[in-house]
């Protein structure tokens, strides 16, 4: 990428410890958008209808754009001459920090919609708060991303309603998808030790503060979809700490193939 990103003067005022934490966290955000964007790209050419094939490709592209901005920032924070490509393509599965939800398989359209909705509901509300971060670069990235996330959330919300309150077939598929994916939704708002530290420092939003808005939107959408909100389900965690499901391995095998087979290849 021949465009140099704007400097962030604040970079140099962070302590080494905070800088390292911020690096790991930005990597987490980048990994999340990368893996979900990659999953959406798997639909390209296979969508149930042309317009939705386009929609998923567009949403994936938005996410990959955010991913690039985030990896570039992470590389600067690390300050060890690794590039955005090194970070995206040359790490081991246990080094990725995306939550478990985004690596789950596409399944059918209902499963993809359910995964997307659960993510978008968090992502949109999270970005709305991240724009107020004292970290200029994160705030700038969030300022752009939140406008796109709003469109994503509208899209996935409307599809949950269409599928839930649709035909017997669509409802069956949505119920099945939710039964499989709901257990991964909690991880998004469950802070890790790293996140708690950055929240205490005021650099990233407090996830508990996002819950009222997220819960309200979820209740509204599920209500319109005539789908009951699941309760009493044990939430799976670990992705943000590098403990992934087997799915990530297959994703990375495909994602990293070119870079690993032809190291340093340029075209």
């Amino acid at each position: 990428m021949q465009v140099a990103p704007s400097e962030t003067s604040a970079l140099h005022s962070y302590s080494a410890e905070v800088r390292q934490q911020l690096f790991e966290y930005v990597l987490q955000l980048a990994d999340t958008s990368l893996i979900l964007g990659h999953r959406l790209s798997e639909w390209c050419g296979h969508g149930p209808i042309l317009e939705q094939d386009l929609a998923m490709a567009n949403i994936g592209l938005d996410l990959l754009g955010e991913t690039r901005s985030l990896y570039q920032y992470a590389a600067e924070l690390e300050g060890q001459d690794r590039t955005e490509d090194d970070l995206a393509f040359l790490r081991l599965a246990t080094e990725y920090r995306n939550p478990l939800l985004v690596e789950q398989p596409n399944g059918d359209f209902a499963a993809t919609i359910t995964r997307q909705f659960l993510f978008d509901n968090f992502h949109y509300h999270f970005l709305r708060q991240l724009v107020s971060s004292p970290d200029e670069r994160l705030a700038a990235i969030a300022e752009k991303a939140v406008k796109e996330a709003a469109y994503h959330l509208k899209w996935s919300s409307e599809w949950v309603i269409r599928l839930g309150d649709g035909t017997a077939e669509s409802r069956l598929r949505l119920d099945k998808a939710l039964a499989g994916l709901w257990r991964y939704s909690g991880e998004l708002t469950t802070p890790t030790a790293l996140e708690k530290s950055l929240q205490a420092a005021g650099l990233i939003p407090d996830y508990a503060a996002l819950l009222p808005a997220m819960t309200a939107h979820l209740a509204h959408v599920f209500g319109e979809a005539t789908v009951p909100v699941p309760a009493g389900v044990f939430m799976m965690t670990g992705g943000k700490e590098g403990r992934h499901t087997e799915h990530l391995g297959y994703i990375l095998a495909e994602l990293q193939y070119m870079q690993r087979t032809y190291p340093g290849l340029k075209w």
Partner: protein
Amino acid sequence: MDKLTTNDQQLTATVWRLLEEVSDPEVPVLSILDLGIVRGVRVEGEQVTVSITPTYSGCPAMNTIATDIRLRLLAEGITQVTIHNQLSPAWTTDWMSQAGRAKLEAYGIAPPVDGTATGHVLNLFGKDTAVRCPLCKSEHTHLVSQFGSTACKAHYQCDACHEPFDYFKCHS
């Protein structure tokens, strides 16, 4: 702030004039200035820095635009060019010039309707932005999908002439 030398001022003016000639790769009737992509030009002696901002996070045209800027300046002998990617303030369709909007419509793409952005996107199944058909000018059109041929465009269809068309999404 140092006062620009006369040379610096002339070079700055030249650069702005040349940037006007760099067109958007996707919609060639528009210049990057019409779109509000160029946020600033800084000149220090022979070193020129152009700040551009992406429209959408994943806009694939940004690399092409950066290359086109370099080539245009290079053709005029301006070789020391740095291009900065300025993320903030975030790009908004408010920065699209009136001339740009008119050119878009003439090209067959409906220009953004101001004030219809994020406020309405969470209005689920709410009324879609009323957009005039760029071809037959009828107001009777409907949204097919919020996601059109590129990240910045939605897909509409006209109920009068039945032609599909792209709408440049309001982004503010």
